[in-house]
């Protein structure tokens, strides 16, 4: 007998199996996209510090690979959403994947901007303190990005939440870096154009840290279902409820006053 009858339990199991394989594939693709960006951070930093124009060009061209993979993952997410109509945790995992793709892809763009900046200041000789701070910002951004992906892979909400505080280190370095650029420009080591480009480059690293924090926030949502915006939304709801209550009270009071003033005439 040909095995082709309707077997709801088995069909359901197979569907679930395929669905979970799709989720695993999605997660693996996100990890791969993030790995490409995590590698770009030290690679781009080296381009900047060594004036390596050839490598800069390669990184700029490789951005197309990143973009293609990002589009592929996003399409896959929409496909799964449309066909499987997931619920609860699975739905959050897919929504998170869609948000993560844009955060990761944007971080890759920022490293491409670093390389473009390196080309614009080619030949500028910036002092060791500025170079040291660029090196440190690169290390810190790499660390944050790696930890954000660790949190995603391990479904680690605590680590994801801690990223916001960890980012303070990178913010501090960015502040020192801007100060060092001012000092360097003041001492005549770099011209204004190079100073502006260097300041922009510092901003790119700082933004990568922010994207890592955003990844953490999204991972926290995936694991717990909570977003920082929920607090804001709850506050808004509470405010609206309070305003409605006050309004009601006010209306009641004015109603009572009207009835008091009406009494003599009616009585």
């Amino acid at each position: 007998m040909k095995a082709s009858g309707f077997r709801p339990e088995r069909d359901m199991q197979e569907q679930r199996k395929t669905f979970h394989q799709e989720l695993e594939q999605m997660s693996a693709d996100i990890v791969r996209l993030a790995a490409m960006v995590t590698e770009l951070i030290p690679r781009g930093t080296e381009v900047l510090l060594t004036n390596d124009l050839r490598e800069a060009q390669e990184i700029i061209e490789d951005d197309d690979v990143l973009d293609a993979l990002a589009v592929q993952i996003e399409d896959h997410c929409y496909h799964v959403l449309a066909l499987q109509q997931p619920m609860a945790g699975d739905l959050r995992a897919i929504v998170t994947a869609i948000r993560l793709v844009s955060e990761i892809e944007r971080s890759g763009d920022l490293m491409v901007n670093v390389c473009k900046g390196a080309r614009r200041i080619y030949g500028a000789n910036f002092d060791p303190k500025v170079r040291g701070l660029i090196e440190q910002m690169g290390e810190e951004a790499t660390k944050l990005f790696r930890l954000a992906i660790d949190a995603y892979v391990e479904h680690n909400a605590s680590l994801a939440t801690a990223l916001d505080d960890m980012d303070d280190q990178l913010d501090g370095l960015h502040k020192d870096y801007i100060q060092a650029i001012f000092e360097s420009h003041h001492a005549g080591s770099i011209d204004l154009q190079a100073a502006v480009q260097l300041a922009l480059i510092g901003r790119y690293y700082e933004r990568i840290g922010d994207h890592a924090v955003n990844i953490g926030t999204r991972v926290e949502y995936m694991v717990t279902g909570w977003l920082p915006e929920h607090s804001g939304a709850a506050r808004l709801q509470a405010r609206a409820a309070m305003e409605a209550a006050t309004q009601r009270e006010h209306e009641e009071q004015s109603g009572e006053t009207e009835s008091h003033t009406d009494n003599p005439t009616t009585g």
Partner: protein
Amino acid sequence: MTIALVVVVIVALGLGVALVVVAGRRRGLQAEVARLERGIDDASARTTALEAERLRLERAFDAIPQGVVLVDDQGEVVVRNTTAAGFSGARHGEALVEAAVAELMTDALKGRVATRTVDLFGPPRRTVVITATPISVAERRCVLAVIDDVSERRRLEAVRRDFVANISHELKTPVGALGLLAETLLAEDDPAVAQRLAERIQTEAFRVGHTIEDLLELSRIESGELPSREVLPVHVVVSEAVERIRPAAEQAGIVVELSDSGRDLTLLGDRRQLISALYNLLDNAVKYSDEESTVEVGASRAGESVEIAVTDHGIGIPVRDLGRVFERFYRVDQARSRRTGGTGLGLSIVRHVVGNHHGDIRVESRLGEGSTFTLCLPAAAGVADEIAATG
């Protein structure tokens, strides 16, 4: 009666025949069961042998330092050794290796060898070469991928390549300058210019002489010649090295601060070599510090070792060069090294001296903030008090 007897006989005969047949069948069945049992035993023995063989092969694959993955024509993994399994489900840079292996295997299933080099910036930095080769097993096409971590090989190649380039540069440059200066001197009539040229020749000759001296010193240390061992008070080693560097430091406007000379510490080693090693560290610190900055020296006890640290607040070393500064003739900044002088062998000599004393050297540095080099040398246990007592 007779009929009854005949019937009984026939029945008895029938029963007899039936019994014989049953007995025969039973024997046949028993033989069949025995044969089946032997078959089961054989199959079981074969399964055990195959399992042992599989385990042996698995262990052999796991012992291979390279990652090995074998997939069949359906893309199912047949073999994946431990090293290769390390890349499976990996994250960060290693995830790119896994993706590259999958892509190359897909290519190789079409019948061509595929190779790719993946450079991972880490940290740590790694270079992985992946080769996927199509092979045929029992008329089925399979693909074998080999993942080879060539980081150490690449590093050694870079060290050798740079050494040859640097040594020829360090020796050829002053010799070329000497030739040109001598040629100009021969054609010069003005005594003042001739004087200047002669002074330049002297400087260049001194420079090449210094390089050769350092090379000979390094060669002596490298030859494994055991240093003479004596119990040395650490403060003597530190003070002598500091006194040797002080004139150069004062000339450069740099203050050498002795935070702790390790007065009650002792170590076992060769006095001349150890002072030379510490002097080299101080010399570097002074050369790469800015005017009016300080260089700090301090000795302390750390478990069974004595640590002597030299800290400067100079230009620092980029992270990517930290692992290479102890190589012979390695320069972080060629242009600056030429201005500051030196042979490019100082740190290499330090590393070999420390190695000869079964010690270690550490370096921590930040660009623009400075560097700390720490010598870790085995302490001379139990003799500190004696030395202190004998004054």
